[in-house]
């Protein structure tokens, strides 16, 4: 176990991905340790989602490697999928299912059985505040609730590694606050990656930030270091400076 713990939770090395002629992810390397919350920043189409899809084993890299707890994602996909909780972009779920049934389905695939399964689903429903809608079909829910169902699904098995693609997109300010609090509360012993467009989120929850634009990694450091990239210590200015190369006041 000691040797397991000394490994980074996620280690991305020289990752490349092509979609036909499009070079979506170019030679990206970084790693994350348990206890870190990594903010994935970048303009739309920068390659954030594609990178996340490769870490979670949905897409195969065109080049380079991803290791999760030391296991190669391509060679041992089931092992790494067990360790990861993943909220895909847009929080997709089966619209015709009722919230509780959907969570029970995910719990079953996650290997929970019998009373454990029902108990854990009830816990999550409480934790994410889904009590009012458990018997509604997911397609009838508001965007905020749908997103929360997605979050619930991703943390159901208490994963060591949590990857969330825009977890607060489409939520109202109160819901955003709740999700951020949830992420913070879980961050002590997990390695968490979240992608976001909201730079204040980086300050609020992240211990580290990575900026990707046009498939390339442009910045990797703490939020303070990111801020200090701009002359007036502003995180938005720093983002613009790094991604466009020009500082706009």
């Amino acid at each position, binding site marked *: 176990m000691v040797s397991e713990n000394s490994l980074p939770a996620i280690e991305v090395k020289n990752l490349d991905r092509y*979609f036909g002629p499009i070079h979506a992810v170019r030679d990206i390397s970084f790693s994350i340790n348990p206890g870190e919350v990594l903010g994935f920043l970048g303009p739309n189409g920068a390659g954030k989602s594609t990178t996340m*899809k490769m870490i*979670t*084993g*949905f*897409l195969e890299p065109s080049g380079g490697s991803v290791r999760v707890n030391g296991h190669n994602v391509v060679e041992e*996909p*089931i092992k790494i*999928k*067990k360790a*990861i909780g*993943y909220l*895909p*972009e*847009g929080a*997709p*779920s*089966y*619209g*015709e*299912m009722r919230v509780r*049934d959907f969570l029970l*389905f*995910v719990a*079953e*695939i*996650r*290997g929970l059985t019998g009373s454990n399964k029902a108990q854990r689903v009830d816990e999550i429903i409480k934790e994410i505040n889904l009590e009012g809608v458990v018997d509604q*079909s997911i397609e009838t829910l508001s965007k905020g609730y749908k997103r929360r169902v997605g979050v619930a*699904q991703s943390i159901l098995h208490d994963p060591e590694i949590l990857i969330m693609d825009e977890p607060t997109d489409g939520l109202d300010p109160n819901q955003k606050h709740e999700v951020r609090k949830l992420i913070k509360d879980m961050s002590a012993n997990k390695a968490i990656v979240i992608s976001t467009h909201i730079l204040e989120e980086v300050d609020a929850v992240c211990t580290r930030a990575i900026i990707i634009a046009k498939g390339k990694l442009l910045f990797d450091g703490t939020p303070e270091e990111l801020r200090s990239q701009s002359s007036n210590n502003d995180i938005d200015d720093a983002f613009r400076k790094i991604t466009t190369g020009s500082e706009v006041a």
Partner: protein
Amino acid sequence: MNNIIAILKRELYGYFATPVAYVFIVIFLFLSGLFTFYMGGFYERNQADLIAFFSFHPILYLFLIPAISMRLWSEERKSGTIELMLTLPITTADAVIGKFLAAWVFAGIALALTFPIWITVNYLGDPDNTVILASYIGSFLMAGGFLAIGSCISALTKSQVIAFVISVVICFLFYVSGTPIVLNFFTGWAPEALINAVSAMSVLTHADSIQKGIIDIRDIIYFSVLIAFWLYANVITIEAKKAG
């Protein structure tokens, strides 16, 4: 195995949580009755058998089976749930088999609900029930073959309409490959062996002999290979196409 069962249960839940299941079953029962009594001349034949009933199943399946299979993967791809499912700790093969089995069980339920015709023929006469049982098995196997084709095709596209149309065409070609429609295309230039091979691929030939009450191991093998081949192609298709 547990994963396959979990997927199978979720899929069946999906059928019955939406009108899809009920509409399909009602239409299937209605059309099979219509064909049996009006086109098959069930009463006029004055025979205690179900040939009038089973002989229209291939035609029914040609259109109704792709209607079940078209949504299997197209919908997952369109709604993005494919990403959710394939990042759960299951293999692509688990997902393919689970979804296929759910569709097959569903087709089986629809088929089983035609039992009143079996009761009717037993009430009216003294049919050979082993032939009827064999016919049901043959019909079920044919449904499985068409479903495997349709499942693979639906993995190719996000559009259910395209999946439906292409599945109908491919099922039709497999259905008629033993008839002149397809064989005439090959005669004259293709070697005898190829023509025989194409002819042997016909769903019609194999389903026919089972429906006559003869369960030949070769027919069972034919359908097993047909299903296995298309499901294997289904897995390959998903691996290759899930990104877009």
